[in-house]
């Protein structure tokens, strides 16, 4: 028995040797790595490290790696701030129709943000988070994905929803928690989700979606459906343990997932200087063995190109990619935050005016003769009208039946929950005048 096992092992090591030699010939650059992972195959006289855990050479020089001395990873961009393509070969050559949709979705998102932000200020919805300044990073990346690629988000990705076809009614139903909300009014506003659009429902705990995205990508790869998974998160969330878990799992288990970090300079009030000491989030990618790129997040074409290339790597080579989109959070963190407490209003205004993803694409389009002031005025008016219509419609709707409170805890309704539901209904019926029953579908 033992002898047979040994014979098998010897045979296996021979096969490994053969494969390694073959690969070394084909890709000399990875020779070092292969030598390391099968260290026993190395010539015994060769003085190279044989540690299983690294792929290094020896050095006799005592030298620490000094990250502070290194230049940061460069920021990839296609258009400059005036909307001029710098290197024509990098222009994705998108059709007028696609570019117009990109622009319209960015501005629709912008108008929607303004109206919903104000409505929260008037106490009409309980909470809201705007996307000001990050419209390009969201829509540029979304446009490069297959519409069926599964997306996991953080919460500042409303533009991705709009790009995929989430309707204004759906936005408003969720924010108001109406009877038509597919989420049944269970989560705070902005926690959108849609199986039809392949966007997994948003949840508040930061970074939890990251290892989940890796797991979903693994399942997609095994299903051989030709799709990948895309996961958005902020640079603050990247400090969570789940981000580390996600990067490491995705790399070791070869998951076709694109991690898109929206590095907008702030996590609520915390500036990046208090968030990390290294070169942003992108510099971590290499440490996990992931293909990584840093992109100008205010350049919608750079985001598009990077995401499209990342998608190809994911799907064709079955490996994760990290994209760090550099941008700036122009708005407050949320409606529960006043950002002037920790940063200067004028500074924000200046940054937003100088570098704005919407403005940049508009200049590009005007250059091509695809957009004019007249179209701009008409579209702004039309989009505002659409938003206000959907808004008023949702405001008039009833909330779901309070029975919903007990449903979907489990797939089935367990006995103890059925009892609690009955008890709640009996109680409310007895004390009706003390509950807002008229705003809800009756039970």
């Amino acid at each position, binding site marked *: 028995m033992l002898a047979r096992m040994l014979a098998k092992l010897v045979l296996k090591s021979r096969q490994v040797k053969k494969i390694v030699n073959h690969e070394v010939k084909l890709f000399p650059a990875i020779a070092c790595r292969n030598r390391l992972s099968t260290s026993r195959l190395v010539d015994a006289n060769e003085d190279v490290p044989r540690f299983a855990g690294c792929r290094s050479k020896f050095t006799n020089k005592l030298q620490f790696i000094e990250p502070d001395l290194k230049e940061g990873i460069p920021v990839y961009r296609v258009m400059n701030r005036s909307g001029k393509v710098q290197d024509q070969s990098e222009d994705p050559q998108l059709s007028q129709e696609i570019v117009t949709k990109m622009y319209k979705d960015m501005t629709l998102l912008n108008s929607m943000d303004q109206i919903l932000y104000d409505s929260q200020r008037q106490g009409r919805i309980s909470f809201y988070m705007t996307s000001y300044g990050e419209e390009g990073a969201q829509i540029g990346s979304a446009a490069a994905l297959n519409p069926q690629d599964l997306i996991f988000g953080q919460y500042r990705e409303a533009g991705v929803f709009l790009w995929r076809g989430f309707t204004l009614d759906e936005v408003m139903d969720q924010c108001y928690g109406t009877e038509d909300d*597919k*989420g049944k009014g269970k989560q705070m506003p902005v926690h959108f989700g849609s199986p039809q659009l392949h966007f997994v429902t948003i949840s508040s705990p930061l970074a939890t979606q990251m290892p*989940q995205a890796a797991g*979903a990508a693994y*399942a997609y790869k095994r299903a051989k459906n030709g799709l990948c998974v895309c996961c958005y998160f902020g640079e603050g969330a990247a400090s969570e343990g789940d981000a*580390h878990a996600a990067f*490491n*799992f995705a790399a070791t288990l070869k998951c076709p997932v694109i991690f898109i970090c929206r590095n907008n300079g702030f996590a609520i009030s915390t500036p990046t200087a208090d968030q990390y000491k290294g070169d942003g989030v992108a510099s971590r990618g290499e440490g996990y063995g992931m293909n990584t790129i840093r992109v100008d997040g205010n350049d919608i074409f750079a985001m598009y190109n990077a995401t499209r290339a990342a998608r190809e790597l994911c799907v064709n080579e079955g490996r994760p990619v990290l994209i760090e989109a550099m941008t700036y959070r122009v708005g407050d963190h949320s409606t529960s935050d006043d950002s002037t407490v920790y940063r200067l209003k004028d500074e924000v205004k200046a940054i937003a005016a100088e570098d704005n993803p919407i403005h940049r694409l508009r200049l590009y389009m005007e250059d091509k003769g695809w957009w004019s002031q007249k179209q701009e005025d008409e579209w702004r008016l039309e989009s505002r009208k659409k938003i206000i219509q959907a808004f008023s419609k949702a405001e008039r709707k009833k909330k779901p039946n309070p029975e919903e409170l007990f449903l979907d805890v489990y*797939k089935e309704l367990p006995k103890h929950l059925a009892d609690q539901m009955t008890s709640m209904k009996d109680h409310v019926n007895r004390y009706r005048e003390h509950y807002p029953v008229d705003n809800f579908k009756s039970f």
Partner: protein
Amino acid sequence: MAPIQKLTDPLRKIVKGISLTSSLLKFQKRFSECRMSLAYTRRYSTSFSYVSSKVPDNAGEIKRMNLCQALTSAMDVALTEDPTTLVFGEDVAFGGVFRCTVGLKDKYGSDRVFNTPLCEQGIAGFAIGAACAGARVIAEMQFADYIFPAFDQIVNEAAKYRYRSGGQFDCGRLTIRSPCGAVGHGAVYHSQSPEAFFAHVPGLKIVIPRGPIQAKGLLLSCIEDDNPCIFFEPKILYRSAIEEVPIGRFLLPLSQAEVLIEGNDVTLVGWGTQVHVLQEVAKMAEEHLKVSCEVIDLRTILPWDSETVAKSVSKTGRLIISHEAPVTLGFASEIASKIQEECFLNLECPIQRVCGYDTPFPHVFEPFYLPDKWKCFEAVKKAVNY
């Protein structure tokens, strides 16, 4: 979160170098040493005699299995029946530090049975995502003591996935298995019974078997259930509990307690290893006190079967609940308050909880810490003499 494993760490290291003859021999030697040391140390743990379960009707072909083998058999069935099924965790590829996944990688391939990096929050998150994207997932946490880094993923994510999306997304195809409970010498971080932490979380199912037949039937039910399940395995039974287990697909219902011994004077409720302690206590009570005890294995902690317990207590009028976990806010508290609510007029004495003390789980004091048969026996005396 590196688990310090006196027994298993040498195994891990040795297995990495298995291609060398000497290592292979060493592996076999050390493996048998580990087994010996288990047997040696067991003398210090609570004494209990394992009581086999009855072979179920219509079980089909059966085979003698210990608890580990029964679990392997359940996973084997799950991997055969659904090609999307995945089994993963720390060290599961070579068969697991407790040998519960032996042979599965060779049979089903390394893309279905695989090691993950050493990171419990990652395992849970990865598992939720894979389940959400259509895979059936059996994830392993090496010890229940190390499930806490995954607490956020389990409590805030897995448990609330279906609810928060209005039923649009779920991770119901997820099962997390984890060894739990006293083992004789596991001390602070290889002995815990964390079921009560999870019992406070709507959306989860929590299941604990008492032996091989139960383990197979209940684990398969968890795997096939459409809700995220946590399956805690009393590790002291892994090798010591052996019985005739159905080899094919075989399910036992969740949320259903089982009356193991019928009696009229006192109801004893427990789960996992403690069920065997309670069965012995019932015998002792019969023999020495002429007291007839009804013994119930709760099996599912959440959602639990209060009806079976209430029915029993309505008959006996006395209830003792026993678990290894600390007493304050242990699951016995929930059972006690629910039963006093349901059976107030039937109760003839206060409900008693015989549990671990409110301390961390100690090393050399384990025999004094555990709610052993003598502590339970004393409770029966108190109940009938009240």
